[in-house]
């Protein structure tokens, strides 16, 4: 599955909505999805736990993925994460 997100310039391979879930559930679920993707694939992740603004970038750093963009509006955070090589 390949989608174009609302920013319009990132090809998304997988979409995960973790609205209503508290940390560490969004991190856990995001890590599970990223594990299944191919290097270079992008995950579009939606969170509503404000802690995600710290946790998701830290997850990307820890896994050596690339955090392409973050959008934080009205209590909803969106992240676009590109799976790194060899993780």
């Amino acid at each position: 599955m390949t989608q174009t997100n609302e920013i319009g310039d990132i090809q998304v391979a997988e979409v995960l909505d973790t609205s209503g879930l508290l940390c560490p559930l969004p991190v856990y679920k995001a890590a599970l999805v990223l594990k299944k993707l191919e290097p270079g694939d992008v995950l579009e992740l939606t969170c509503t736990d404000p802690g995600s603004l710290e946790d998701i970038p830290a997850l990307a750093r820890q896994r050596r993925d690339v955090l392409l963009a973050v959008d934080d509006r009205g209590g909803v955070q969106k992240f676009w994460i590109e799976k790194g090589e060899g993780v």
Partner: protein
Amino acid sequence: MTRINTRASLIKHLANDRQLRRYGDIRDLLPGPDNPTPLVRVNRVTPPDLQLFLKLEWLNPFGSVKDRTAAHLLAGLVERGELADAQLVEASSGNTGIALAALAAHMGVQLTVTIPDGVPEEKKTLLRMLGAEVWETPDDLCPVDHPKDGAIALARSLVASDTGTRYVMADQYENYDNVRAHYETTGPEIWRQTNGHLQYFLAGLGTGGTITGAGRFLKEQDPTIRVIGIEPQAGHRIPGLRSFKEAKPPGILDWTLIDDVIQVDDDPAYDVTERLFREEGFIVGPSTGAVVHAASQLGAGGNEVAVGISADSGLKYMSYFAERLGDEGLPTV
């Protein structure tokens, strides 16, 4: 036709008989003062003048000391009406999850177990065989500003989140029913089995349920009994035990009952476990090796009696042992 009916009626009337070890339900095997797990002396691995008895908790129906905890946790949840229309979740390094899964299955309750990274495959497979969902969880799951205990944090977040399913956590780390299990069963069993003649009680530090519950009961009978906790090193590989250098002490652990904490590293724990296998035929998990190693450090002797908890069987750790053995015991060309 008549004969079949007669047989069916005979079978129907076969009542539980503990003397014959005949039971109508696997749960009737759960331990208690009238159905204690065995106390067996260690004869070769410890110093000759130490009378160390192991309480063989792996002979419980679901294979570990946690059968007691799980039964009491579930009974408490049922009594308080907390389980109605809910799914159960628990953070466990395996044994509590296994006992909860077996008991929950009898009640038609679905269980999710959040389990730390690195727990042996045997335990994860056992849980799945029992119908539980297993969520393997790295300790550093939440990379920023969260407790290191990832499995506990994940289980708690399932309860607190809006997932569309109501989750209830048994919470062996904070639920006093865990202590009650050992205060009402393990402690009284040991007191009775030793005729009240013991000077030391040893248990690994994990949730704190065993040492707090049994330790409190034993000290109430005889305040001179020394209660010894066994703590592993940070980054250890002794499932069931916790190093408080890296994990938060559980809320139910009562430090005032503990006279001494003996630190045991992986190597001596595994060395002693191997000796227990080879010299005495105790097929035990590595936490038993840690307990026996700690008992040997007590300097006890003469007429002194120590009782240590042998929490589980070595069969759950065969992959760990195989790794440690390498080529040992295989033919050389």
